[in-house]
C-alpha cells in the first residue's frame, strides 16, 4: 500500500474517521534556488558538488551573504531545510582564508554535538583541508583536551560546558578567544524561560571574555518556527540581528490530522487513552509498510509504546526488531545504530521522546504520530517536520489527550494552523539569574566599577555582593573573594534554584523525578499519593532539609489533596491598565504558601475517606505577577452569590493557568494562578497569575502587555468543552470548583472578555 492509499483508507474508515476532528492538507512547494556566492572558496563548492549539492536554496545563499557582510543573523526555516549548511560553509570559508580563525558551536544537547561533528568531518574530508573540529563536553577525554584548546578550529559544545568548563578557565583557551570569529547558536527556541535567561547571561560573559582578548565574534543563530525569533535572538545576544525566514527548500504535500479519541466518561471528561490509539494507528502503518516515527511525552511512554508496536508487528509477521525505541538514556552507540537504521530503511518505526525533535539527522520518514500535544505549537511543527521527504507526500497525526491544551487545540484547529506559534520569552535581567552570572563573571575577570553587565544597575549588584563579602571592592575594581567555584553551584537548567528530588525505594534507590521547592509541600508531603507517569507512589518520608522525598510504588483507590493557604502580598505596582470595571495590574509580589493538612479522596466517587496533618515550613517566593481585580460594579452586574464566588474564581484561575502556555512559550509548571475572593491588597475579588520562579522570568509581564488572546482563549476553551459541569480538561473537576463552577466561569469570562476585548 502506498502512503496515498493509506491516507485514503484512514479518511474513509468509519471507526477512525469519527475521531478525526480536523484534516488539513498543505500543498507542496517547489524549491527556490539562490546563487553560490563567489566569495566561497572553490574547494568547498567542489566538496558540496561531490555530495550532490549543486545549487543552494535561497535562504542558504542569503544567510551566507549576510554573514559575509558581517551581520548577526537568525535563520528560521523548517526541519531538514539545510540550516546547518548555511552556517558551516561561511565558517569553513573563513578558516580556509585565515587558518588562525576560530568558531564556537553551541547546541543544547550532547547528542546534537555528535551529529554536527560527523557532518563537519564529512565535509572537511571531502575538501581535503586541515581544519580541526572537536566536540568538547563531559565525555571528552582529558588527554585530548589540551589539543582541542590549542588547535581546534571549530569547538562544538553545549551551554553547560561553556558555563562550567570553558569560561571559568579562559586563560587556557587563549587561542580560541583571541581568534573567535563566529559563534553559532543552534536551536535557540530551546533557550527560553529560565534556561534562555541563563543563556543570555552566558553570552554576556562570553562577550566580556572576548573583549578581554580583543575579539568580537559574529553570532549565527538558528531557530525552529516561533513567533518572535529575531526578538528572542536579539534578547540573547544583545546585538542587532538580521532575520532570514524565507524558506527556499521544497516541501512535499503534507496531511496534518488532528485526532481526538472518543469520550469514555463524560462526567470526568476522560477520553480513550492516547496509547491505545497509537497502537491501533501503528498497526495500519505497519501493514502499509510506511516508515514512521511516534513522539511520546515521556521516557516510560516510549518503552510502553515500543513494546505494544513490536507485539503488533509480530502478529503481522514483521520482524519486531524493525520497531525501535529512542530516548535519552540509551547508549550513544545504540542511538547511532537506530539513526542509521532509519536512514537506511532497515528500521520501519521508531518511538521517541522529543530527543529526535532536534536536528539529529535521521533522514525523512513518511508518517509522524504525535502521541499528545507536545506542549508548544513550535514543537508540534518540529515533530511533524520529521515526516515528509522533500518531494513526497507525508502524513502527521496529532492525537489529543484529555488535558485542557490538547482539547483546546482539537476544538480550535484554526488557532493551531493559522496563528503563528508561541513567543520564546527570556528575561536575562531576572535579578537572581543576573546575580549568579555576575558572580561567575567576577570569577572570570574582575569587574571595573564603571562596567555594565546586563543592566545599568549592575553596579548595585556588585556592591551588594561586596557587602556580603563575596567580592572585594578595591581600587575601582571588584575581585572574586571566595574559595567557591561559582559556576559549579549554578545550574543553567533547573527551574528553581532548589528542587526536591523524588526517590523511589521500591527497587533500590532510583530517582524518578523532581519537583520545585514551591510545589513540594503540596505534592510530596508525607503520606501524599504522588502521581508519576500514571503510576501511584506513596510518600514515605519528606526530608525537607536534604530536599529529598522517599516514595514507594503503590496501588490504592484514592488520591490526596493538600490543603494549602496561599497569601500574596503586593510589593509594588509597576503597571496598571483599566478596562471599565476591571483592573489589570502588574508588579512584584511575595507569595507565601503553607501546607497544613491533606484529604484522602476516593477515586471516581470522590468521597472523603480520611485526612491528616502536614507540618512543613511556610515557603516564600518573591516574583512578578499579573492580577485582575473585579470592581464592585462588575460584580453587581453579574450577581454571583457569595457562596459560589470562590468556586467560580477558582474555575477561571484554573483555565487561565491551563491555557497560558499556548500564548507564551513555557511549561505548564512555569506559571501559577491564585484566586482570592477578597484580596488583602485591593479588598476585591482578584485573580493572580504569577511566574513560578523567584524574581520572575517575564511570563506574566508578557501577558500583561498583551492580555487579549489569553482571555478570549480561556472563554473558548470553556465554551467548547463537552463536559457537563467542569472537568480537568477545562475549569477543573467539579469537586474543586463546585457544581456551578463551569457555568459561572463562563459567565465571568464572557463579561471579562467583553470588557477587555472591547478596547482591543
Amino acid at each position, binding site marked *: 500500500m502506498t502512503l496515498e492509499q493509506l491516507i485514503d483508507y484512514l479518511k474513509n474508515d468509519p471507526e477512525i474517521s469519527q475521531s478525526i476532528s480536523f484534516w488539513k492538507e498543505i500543498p507542496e512547494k517547489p524549491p527556490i534556488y539562490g546563487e553560490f556566492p563567489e566569495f566561497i572558496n572553490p574547494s568547498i563548492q567542489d566538496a558540496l558538488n561531490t555530495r550532490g549539492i549543486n545549487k543552494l536554496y535561497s535562504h542558504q545563499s542569503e544567510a551566507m551573504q549576510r554573514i559575509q557582510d558581517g551581520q548577526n543573523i537568525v535563520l528560521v526555516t523548517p526541519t531538514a531545510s539545510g540550516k546547518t549548511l548555511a552556517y558551516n560553509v561561511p565558517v569553513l570559508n573563513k578558516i580556509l582564508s585565515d587558518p588562525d580563525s576560530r568558531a564556537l558551536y553551541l547546541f543544547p544537547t550532547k547528542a546534537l554535538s555528535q551529529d554536527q561533528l560527523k557532518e563537519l568531518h564529512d565535509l572537511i574530508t571531502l575538501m581535503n583541508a586541515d581544519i580541526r573540529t572537536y566536540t568538547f563536553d563531559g565525555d571528552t577525554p582529558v588527554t585530548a583536551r589540551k589539543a582541542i584548546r590549542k588547535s581546534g578550529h571549530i569547538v562544538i559544545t553545549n551551554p553547560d560546558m561553556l558555563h562550567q568548563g570553558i569560561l*571559568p578557565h579562559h586563560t*587556557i583557551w587563549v587561542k580560541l578567544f583571541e581568534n573567535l570569529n563566529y559563534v553559532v547558536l543552534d536551536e535557540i527556541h530551546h533557550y527560553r524561560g529560565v534556561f534562555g535567561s541563563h543563556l543570555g547571561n552566558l553570552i554576556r560573559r562570553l562577550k566580556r571574555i572576548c573583549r578581554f582578548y580583543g575579539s568580537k565574534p559574529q553570532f549565527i543563530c538558528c531557530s525552529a518556527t516561533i513567533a518572535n525569533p529575531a526578538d528572542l535572538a536579539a534578547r540573547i545576544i544583545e546585538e542587532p540581528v538580521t532575520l532570514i525566514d524565507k524558506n527556499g527548500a521544497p516541501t512535499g504535500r503534507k496531511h496534518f490530522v488532528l485526532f481526538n479519541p472518543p469520550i469514555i466518561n463524560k462526567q470526568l471528561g476522560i477520553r480513550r487513552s492516547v496509547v491505545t490509539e497509537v497502537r491501533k494507528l501503528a498497526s495500519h502503518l505497519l501493514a502499509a509498510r510506511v516508515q514512521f516515527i511516534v513522539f511520546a511525552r515521556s521516557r516510560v511512554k516510549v518503552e510502553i509504546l515500543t513494546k505494544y508496536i513490536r507485539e503488533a508487528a509480530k502478529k503481522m509477521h514483521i520482524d519486531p526488531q524493525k520497531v525501535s525505541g529512542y530516548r535519552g538514556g540509551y547508549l550513544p552507540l545504540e542511538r547511532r545504530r537506530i539513526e542509521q537504521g532509519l536512514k537506511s530503511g532497515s528500521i520501519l518505526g521508531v518511538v521517541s521522546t522529543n530527543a529526535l525533535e532536534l536536528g539529529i539527522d535521521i533522514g525523512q520518514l513518511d508518517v509522524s504520530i504525535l502521541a499528545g500535544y507536545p506542549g508548544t505549537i513550535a514543537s508540534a511543527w518540529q515533530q511533524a517536520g520529521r515526516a515528509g521527504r522533500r518531494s513526497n507526500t507525508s502524513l502527521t497525526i496529532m492525537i489529543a489527550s484529555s488535558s485542557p491544551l490538547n482539547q483546546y487545540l482539537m476544538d480550535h484547529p484554526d488557532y493551531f494552523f493559522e496563528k503563528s506559534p508561541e513567543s520564546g520569552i527570556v528575561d536575562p535581567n531576572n535579578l537572581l539569574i543576573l546575580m549568579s552570572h555576575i558572580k561567575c563573571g*567576577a570569577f572570570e*575577570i574582575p569587574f571595573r566599577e564603571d562596567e555594565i553587565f546586563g543592566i545599568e544597575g549592575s553596579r548595585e549588584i556588585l556592591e*551588594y555582593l561586596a557587602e556580603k563579602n563575596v567580592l572585594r571592592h578595591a581600587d*575601582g575594581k571588584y575581585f572574586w573573594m571566595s574559595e567557591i*567555584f561559582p559556576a559549579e553551584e549554578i545550574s543553567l537548567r533547573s527551574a528553581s534554584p532548589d528542587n526536591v528530588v523524588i526517590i523511589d525505594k521500591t527497587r533500590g534507590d532510583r530517582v524518578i523525578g523532581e519537583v520545585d521547592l514551591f510545589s513540594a509541600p503540596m505534592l510530596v508531603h508525607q503520606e501524599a499519593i504522588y502521581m508519576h507517569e500514571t503510576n501511584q507512589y506513596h510518600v514515605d518520608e519528606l526530608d525537607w532539609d536534604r530536599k529529598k522525598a522517599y516514595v514507594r510504588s503503590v496501588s490504592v483507590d484514592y488520591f490526596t489533596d493538600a490543603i494549602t493557604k496561599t497569601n500574596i502580598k503586593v510589593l509594588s505596582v509597576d503597571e496598571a491598565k483599566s478596562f471599565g470595571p476591571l483592573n489589570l495590574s502588574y508588579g512584584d509580589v511575595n507569595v507565601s504558601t503553607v501546607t497544613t493538612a491533606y484529604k484522602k479522596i476516593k477515586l471516581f466517587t470522590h468521597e472523603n475517606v480520611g485526612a491528616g496533618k502536614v507540618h512543613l515550613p511556610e515557603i516564600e517566593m518573591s516574583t512578578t505577577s499579573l492580577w485582575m481585580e473585579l470592581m464592585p460594579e462588575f460584580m453587581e452586574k453579574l450577581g454571583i452569590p457569595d457562596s459560589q464566588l470562590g468556586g467560580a474564581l477558582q474555575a477561571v484561575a484554573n483555565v487561565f493557568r491551563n491555557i497560558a502556555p499556548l500564548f507564551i512559550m513555557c511549561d505548564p509548571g512555569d506559571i501559577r494562578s491564585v484566586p482570592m475572593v477578597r484580596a488583602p491588597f485591593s479588598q476585591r475579588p482578584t485573580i493572580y497569575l504569577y511566574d513560578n520562579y523567584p524574581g520572575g522570568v517575564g511570563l506574566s509581564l508578557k501577558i500583561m502587555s498583551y492580555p487579549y488572546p489569553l482571555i478570549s482563549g480561556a472563554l473558548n476553551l470553556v465554551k467548547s468543552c463537552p463536559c457537563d459541569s467542569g472537568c480537568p480538561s477545562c475549569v477543573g473537576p467539579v469537586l474543586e470548583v463546585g457544581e456551578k463552577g463551569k457555568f459561572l466561569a463562563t459567565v465571568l469570562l464572557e463579561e471579562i472578555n467583553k470588557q477587555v476585548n472591547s478596547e482591543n
Partner: protein
Amino acid sequence: MSSIKDKLQRLDRSPAIRSESCQTENPATGKWITDFQMELGASVLEEKNSFIILKENYFPLYKNSSYNNLQEANYFLPHFHYISGDPRTRDWNLRKTLFIDLETTGLSGGTGTFAFLIGLGHVELDHIVVRQYLLPDFQHEWLLLKHIKNAFVGREFIASFNGKSFDIPLLRNRFILNRIDSVLDDLIHIDILHPARRIWKRRLNSCDLVNLEYAVLGEERIGDIPGEMIPQIYFEYIRKRQAILLRDVLEHNYYDIVHLIILTMHIGKMIADPLESCRHEEDLYSLARYYYQNEHFSEALPLLQHLYELGKDPQLKKESMFILSMIYKKRGDTRASRDLFQALISTQKDHAEALQELAKYYEHKEKNYRSALELIDRGIEYSLFLQQLGKDSPLHDIKDDLIYRRNRLIKKISKWSSEAESE
C-alpha cells in the same frame, strides 16, 4: 537603600559570608601596612600606587646530613635525571634553580583563584634563602607578578611539589590575566612529587609533603595550619586588615619551601649512592624497579643484586630476582637469566611470569622442547590445583597461554621425532 538591593535582599536566600563589616574594624590607614614591618619583620615594596610585602628568611643547612654531599657535588644533582623522567634535568644545578610554592584563595583552580602568597627558595653556600611575596590586596597583583618575573631572571630551573598540576598552571593564569608575559614556559620544571612517589609510594600510604617530611626527613610540624583553612584566613585578613593573621600562613609556606629543598637534596643523595643512603629495602626496590622500567639497567643491577643477596624481605627478594633475570635476558646473558628464573620457580611455584619466561627460553633459545613441556605440564598441573581460588589464583590469567604453548610444543616434538626417524 536602592531598589535593586532591596529586591536582592528579598530574593537571595544564601547566607552572607561572615557578616562582620570591614569598614568599622579597619585600623587607621597606613597602620596595617607598618604592622607588616613591625609584627612580621617584612618589608614593603612600592611602585606607582601599588605595594606588596616581601619577607626574607634564611635556613642554615649545617644540621642537615645531606648537605656535605651536596657541597661535594658542587650544587649538581648529577643522577637526578634517572628518577625525574626528564632528560633535560641531566645538568640540574641548584644554583640555577628556584623552588616555588603558592598559597591560594581556593583549591579548585580557574581564573578566579588568586595566588596571594608566592614563596621562592634557593640555596646559597650553606643556607637556604626563602623570599615570600605577599599580596596585601587584590589590586596589587600586577606588582607581585612583576617581582616574581624578575626573580626568575638568570634561573633555568623551577622546582615544586605538585606544581605540574596546580601551582604552575595557576601562576600562568595570573600572568595572562594581568597581561604580563610569563617566563614560566622558558624554565625547566621539576615536580618533586613524581620522583618522591616513585621512591616512596610502595612503603608510605601517602606521599604528600607533610607525610614525607615526617617519614623521610624525620621532621614534624608543630602548630601547622591545615591547608584547607588558608583561603579563609586570607579573606579574614582582607576584611580586617590585620597583618598578624597571616603569620601562620607565612610560616606554613616557609616550611613548605625549606622542606621541599631538603627533600630534594635527600633524593639527590639517595640517587647518587642508594646502597649507602637507603635504609629501607622497599625504597631501594622501588628505585631499582623504576630504573629497570626506564632501561637504566646499569643503575638497577647493583641494587637488585644487593636485594637478592642480602635482602631480608622474602617477597622483595623474589621480585628482585625476577627483574634481575629479566635484565640478564635483555642483556643477552641467557644462562644467568635461566638459572635465576629456575631458582625463582623453585622457591615460588606459582610465579606466572617466571614460568612463562622460562618456557620461552627452553622452547626458543635452547629448543629443548621436552624440558619446556615438562615445565609447562608442571605449571598446568599446579594451575589446576589452584583453580579453586578462581580469579585469585596467580596462574589464572596465564592458564590458556600455557595450554596453547603445550599444544604447540607437542606438535613440535612429534614433528621433530618423525624427522629424526626419517633420517
